[in-house]
């Protein structure tokens, strides 16, 4: 009997049938990918493809005692660099003229950015399967397939380096089995010697313009989403400032464990006109919708119906505003 089971297993592997993963294994693996992204030193070139365009970017990523350091150099189109030192980011966009900007990124949330009970719902939203092995950018990778169980999310296919758990390739897949966005290393060197000079910007430094990142977390705005799509739960709520905006913006974040949807709520000041509509860029959908004297903007790497359903059910349930 065992032999039969083994043979069946062999045949199914040969046919590349994906093997469902236990929930705990899936969660552990996803956590490992996220940890590797911040703990592994590597350098390479990746392509990013969406909306029929492909762009190459060079990445240098060093992790040492002083923390995590990253430099991204855009290779196609206007030259741009992003430098990130332990959450402190600088953008070098010379094509945009006065273009060095900085901000303090939030402390890394870790992945999945979820509460323990939400981890348990992962398998309610996705079927997670082991989809065999594939060689990628010179490394042997393990392929993980996340198939959504409803139309509120996209599918994901992840190629993970066997040795370090570094993500080597990732694709988001629509309900029609179309790849809507993907990133993939074409070349990567994991570990080894690392020349720190490669972390320095090469583009000219210009007058800095600060991106305002002041924020107040642990904040109860009183805004809620009445009709959340299944599996989504609130993971963050804050009040923050954005440049060019006179009023603080309420920012709510919901996640299903794999992707997130942000809801931004701002008062429509005198003279500002409401926005209504949808926009799409690769896997990211954006929905703007006025609600009384407030502008609601929803952004998420989800299908349009998800951002719309969320945006259309944002309600104020708090006490009188100050």
């Amino acid at each position, binding site marked *: 009997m065992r032999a039969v089971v083994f043979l069946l297993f062999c045949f199914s592997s040969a046919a590349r049938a994906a093997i469902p993963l236990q929930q705990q294994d899936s969660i552990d693996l996803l956590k490992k990918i*996220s940890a590797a992204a911040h703990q592994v030193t590597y350098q390479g070139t990746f392509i990013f493809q969406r909306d029929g365009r492909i762009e190459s970017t060079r990445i240098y990523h060093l992790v040492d005692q002083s923390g995590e350091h990253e430099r991204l150099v855009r290779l196609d189109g206007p030259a741009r660099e992003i430098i990130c030192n332990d959450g402190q980011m600088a953008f070098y966009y010379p*094509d945009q003229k006065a273009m060095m900007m900085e901000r303090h990124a939030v402390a890394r949330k870790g992945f999945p*950015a979820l509460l323990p009970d939400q981890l348990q719902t992962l398998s309610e939203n996705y079927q997670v399967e082991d989809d065999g092995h594939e060689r990628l950018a010179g490394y042997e990778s393990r392929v993980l397939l996340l198939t959504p169980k409803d139309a509120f999310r996209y599918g*994901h296919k992840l190629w993970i380096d066997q040795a370090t758990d570094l993500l080597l390739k990732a694709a988001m897949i629509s309900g029609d089995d179309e790849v809507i966005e993907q990133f993939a290393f074409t070349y990567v060197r994991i570990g080894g010697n690392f020349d720190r000079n490669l972390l320095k910007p090469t583009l000219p430094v210009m007058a800095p313009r600060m991106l305002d990142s002041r924020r107040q977390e642990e904040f109860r705005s009183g805004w809620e989403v009445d009709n959340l799509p299944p599996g989504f739960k609130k993971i963050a709520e804050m009040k923050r400032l954005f440049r060019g905006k006179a009023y603080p913006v309420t920012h709510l974040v919901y996640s299903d464990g794999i992707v997130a949807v942000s809801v931004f709520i701002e008062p429509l000041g005198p003279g500002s006109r*409401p926005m*209504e509509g949808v926009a*799409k860029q*690769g896997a990211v959908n*954006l929905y703007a*919708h006025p609600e009384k004297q407030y502008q609601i903007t929803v952004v998420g790497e989800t299908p349009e119906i998800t951002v719309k359903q969320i945006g259309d059910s944002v309600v104020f349930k708090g006490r009188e505003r100050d």
Partner: protein
Amino acid sequence: MNEKISMLMDGELDDEEADRLLSGFNQGEAEKWHCYHLIAEAIRDPEGFRADLHVDCINAIEAEPTVLAPHRSKTQKAKVYAWSAAASFAAVALVGWMALQSPQGTVVPSQVAQAVRLNVLKSKLNDYVTAHQEFSPESEMMTSNIRTVSDTYQENGR
């Protein structure tokens, strides 16, 4: 000049001004004018647009650095499309497609008149997209900067 072309698309120039503008077009501007019309077509018929849009047009649109100031909104549908085309070279490449919709999914002129186009405000929306990336578990698996560095329109508008 871009603003003039935009105004022309909007029907905001009188005949004399329009004549002067059209006859003064150089090669590049003529192509741009042609592009705007292609885009207008594309917005009217999103199904057919990718195949028809010339590569040079896409390049020209992408090379466009500035955001045009929003004009007074028009209520006529055709003008709205044209306006959108002129002001939103970005809409084509930034979002692939974009539509103004009422909650019921149809264009309601009064709402169109009220609504400021999303694409004109894309710089602010880009801030939102960037702010959102920080919280995305999916971005967290690699680097949250993938989308940011690849975004042609990041920080375009001011």
